């Protein structure tokens, strides 16, 4: 008897109705604000004020044109992309290196280092933001791209090293020993064996970090001052606040902030579910 058969046989209609009601309610509540935001972004402000709920009568791209022209959205988008990609790639590489060192070298100090990194899970951006601001100002990293990327990498590391270590631990020692006997150096072992075998965990670390870095707000907001340094969330926040009379324009800015992540979501959905499900949990 197959599992599904077993399940369907025992279905009580009460539970089915309840399930549908509950899940549909949740889906509607989740989607309605986003759908409303999407179609409202094609309406001019006057139309939104008169008929806030109705679909656009004459869909217009005027809001988007203005948002890109006055809102610095292109620049913000590329900044976000730059910050997120560079810091995610660095976090992935550094965490795999560290994970390899901490699990396969058999030094007693590894435990201490691991514990030290785990401590970082308890520390969040706002507990270091004051000293970080003072430090960056005094060494000249304030309002530079490097000054944003370094904290992004650092805050990604504790979780990434945890995930990388537990995965690399599972790679058979025999593989590495055989390579050592064949005369391979540790650099070679890392690039050819560890990195190749770690593809699934690379995806998990990359996806989680990219998501966090893309949506990060406080660090960019406090450690940069120039318009041309700002990421998408920071730009949208000041743009939608400054012009808070024009609803149409605001909606277009919000859509610009959401659409790239929806594309990302549909591509990376499985890796995301796996990443969060495996115990990697958002701050």
């Amino acid at each position: 008897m197959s599992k599904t058969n077993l399940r369907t046989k025992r279905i009580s209609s009460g539970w089915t109705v309840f399930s549908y009601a509950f899940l549909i309610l949740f889906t509607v509540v989740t989607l309605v604000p986003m759908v409303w935001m999407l179609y409202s972004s094609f309406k001019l402000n006057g139309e939104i004020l008169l008929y806030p709920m109705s679909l656009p009568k004459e869909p217009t791209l005027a809001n988007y044109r203005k948002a890109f022209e006055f809102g610095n959205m292109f620049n913000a988008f590329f900044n976000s992309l730059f910050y997120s990609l560079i810091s995610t790639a660095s976090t992935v590489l550094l965490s795999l290196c560290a994970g390899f060192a901490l699990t396969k070298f058999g030094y007693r100090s590894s435990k201490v280092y691991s514990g030290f990194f785990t401590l970082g899970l308890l520390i969040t951006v706002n507990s270091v933001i004051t000293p970080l601001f003072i430090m960056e100002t005094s060494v000249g990293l304030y309002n530079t791209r490097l000054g944003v990327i370094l904290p992004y990498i650092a805050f990604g590391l504790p979780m990434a090293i945890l995930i990388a270590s537990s995965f690399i631990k599972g790679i058979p020692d025999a593989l590495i020993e055989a390579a050592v006997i064949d005369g391979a150096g540790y650099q070679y072992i890392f690039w050819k064996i560890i990195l190749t075998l770690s593809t699934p965990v690379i995806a998990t670390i990359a996806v989680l970090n990219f998501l966090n870095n893309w949506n990060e707000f406080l660090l960019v907001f406090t450690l940069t001052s120039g318009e041309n340094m700002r990421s998408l969330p920071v730009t949208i926040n000041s743009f939608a606040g400054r012009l808070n009379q024009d609803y149409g324009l605001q909606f277009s800015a919000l859509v610009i902030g959401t659409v790239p992540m929806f594309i990302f979501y549909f591509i990376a959905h499985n890796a995301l579910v796996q990443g969060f499900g495996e115990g990697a949990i958002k701050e």
Partner: protein
Amino acid sequence: MIRNRNKKISFYTLLMPAFIIYLSIIIFPIVMSFGLSFTKWRHYQMVGVVGLENYVSILKDPSFQKSLWNNVQIMLISVLGQIPLGVILAYLLYRKWVRGAKFFEMMIFMPITISSVVVALLWNRVFSPVGIYTALVRSITHNPDYVVKIFESSRFAMIPILIVLLWQHTSLYMVIFLANLQRLPESVFEAAVIDGAKESTIIMKIVLPALANVIFTCSVLAISGSLKSFDLVFAMTGGGPVDYTSVMALYLYKQTFTFSNYGYGSAVSIIIVILSVGLISLSRGLYARAQRKYE
């Protein structure tokens, strides 16, 4: 001998880049923060060491107390709202009583990708005079002049924020619990179903015990996470009106970056760290005690 030295060099080459970045950007500032918290600043200059004075005036400040209470409300909605709803959603999806469980999961999980800033601004629109919520209430109550006034209430101003938090994060717990349910061996369920166990029995005797650990872990993270909330509140209300919706991280932000009071701000951040570590240890202790009781 040479190989041993090589090994040591490789070890440090692999470990040190991560370690140095981590040390200088997370550990060093925390230590510095601790030191700063005993100092007083004026016009971007340190003007003296004041001992525990910062801590005393923070704890006495009614604005900080209000912020702390708002953090507690966020904590309660996380632990008593998001997590139970997450368990229910995960279970309904797991039992596949509906068609298209995958579709529901995919749609409900979507807000996880949106930045808190966008979520906050979107919901501000929802509650605005041209918003969905306002329109809904107007059509139900037949009062065309209804506007949302709860933001101005000192006691209830947090409610819209709590609703948004529920909207934003419940699905995260759903995904975590679902992943854990799917790791359960199918045979356990089959046996229970064949034996004709009632749904309530299955939930109480199989599902909840199986999820107990992960529910606990999530609660711990929700508790410490709720002490740190910033982005959403900052973008949605900025803590206002007055300090009705202020949270500790926002209080910290204002002290540091609006008043340039670095010592005072650092003391707030140390208080947040102490509270978060304290609450985590406390809940761990309670959980361990509860486990011993039931074994």
